């Protein structure tokens, strides 16, 4: 993994995290940027861990880097796909183990599972969706309490992602030393 590429992922993750702290934005936008920061941080950690054969780099990009909610995607949608190499499956396990150590409360895993979606019945940060009662909801209508129930307590999410991004960046720096 080239350091400039990894740094670019981490810079963007941190920029997304900062965007999630901006004043005057709706809770849905705040939560969207936090989800994006978490996703990019997980991908950065995946890039650090990955040492698969060069021939498998394309599969790593396809199944991991190019996906929303990369952990959930790997664990569910591609789990039974024989085309997924063992190296990718073991990277997923290692990512899960790393997150369990870095974030014992499971906040990051929960945020990872809140994928931006176009499905009208799924909660979305960006697009109108239908509530469980069949009511059309604009994400901007949801209260902080509703977002807390969906993504997790805002302060907890902000803190968990901040710590996570710092840990990943520290690993990057240590690898260069």
């Amino acid at each position, binding site marked *: *993994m080239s350091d400039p590429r990894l740094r670019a992922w981490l810079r963007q993750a941190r920029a997304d995290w900062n965007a999630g702290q901006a004043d005057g934005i709706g809770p849905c936008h705040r939560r969207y940027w936090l989800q994006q920061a978490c996703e990019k941080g997980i991908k950065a*950690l995946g890039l*650090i*861990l*990955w*040492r*698969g*054969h060069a021939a498998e780099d394309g599969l790593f990009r396809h199944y991991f880097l190019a996906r929303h909610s990369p952990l959930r995607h790997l*664990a569910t949608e591609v789990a039974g796909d*024989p085309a997924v190499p*063992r*190296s990718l*499956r*073991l*990277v997923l*396990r*290692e990512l*899960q*183990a*790393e997150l*369990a*150590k*870095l974030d014992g409360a499971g906040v990051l895993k929960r945020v990872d599972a809140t994928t931006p979606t176009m499905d009208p019945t799924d909660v979305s940060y960006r697009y109108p969706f239908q509530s469980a009662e069949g009511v059309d909801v604009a994400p901007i209508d949801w209260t902080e309490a509703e977002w807390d129930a969906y993504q997790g307590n805002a302060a907890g999410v902000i803190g968990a992602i901040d710590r996570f991004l710092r*840990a*990943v960046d*520290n*690993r990057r720096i*240590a*690898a*260069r*030393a």
Partner: protein
Amino acid sequence: MRECRRPQEASEDLGKDAHGLQPVGPRNEIVSTHESEGHTAASVAPWGAWISPAGPRALSAPLLERYSSFVIPRANVEELARAHAALEEPTTAAIWIHRARPEAWLVEVIPTMAPDEHADEPVFLNPGAGFRFPLAIIAGNRASLEAALRRNTDLARAVADGDVVVDAGDAQPLLELARQLAA
């Protein structure tokens, strides 16, 4: 499996220190092979450790013991293996092999893995933010790993000499099979 480079090629690229040890390069493409044990897998130390150009086996036993315990504490390996055992698709056996090597080599039984004729081929991972050592994982379901031990007597010997760090029922039978095959 990653392409291997022979030790002499690696030593042409990198200087040695006063003790005859060579640094692992910044992108860590330096390699020690383990052909004395029948392995040709690349051993890479991305966190910048120092390894003998001839591989850890070239060190004297007491020094080797001290070196390996300095490089990867057992507690860290055990913690990692326990984390794997706590995953949704848990590891039910983890045996730490090649303990003198700069990577943590784990043989792991993961019952949910599909049958694999190449289960004895390690997957290499770089150090992470939690577990800060490089990893080499040989993983498969128990039947695949048992078949791998029967095929690969070097692996059987390594497992027979290994250290069980997680056993939820699959480690001891695997260890006993390895000992039979290695005898």
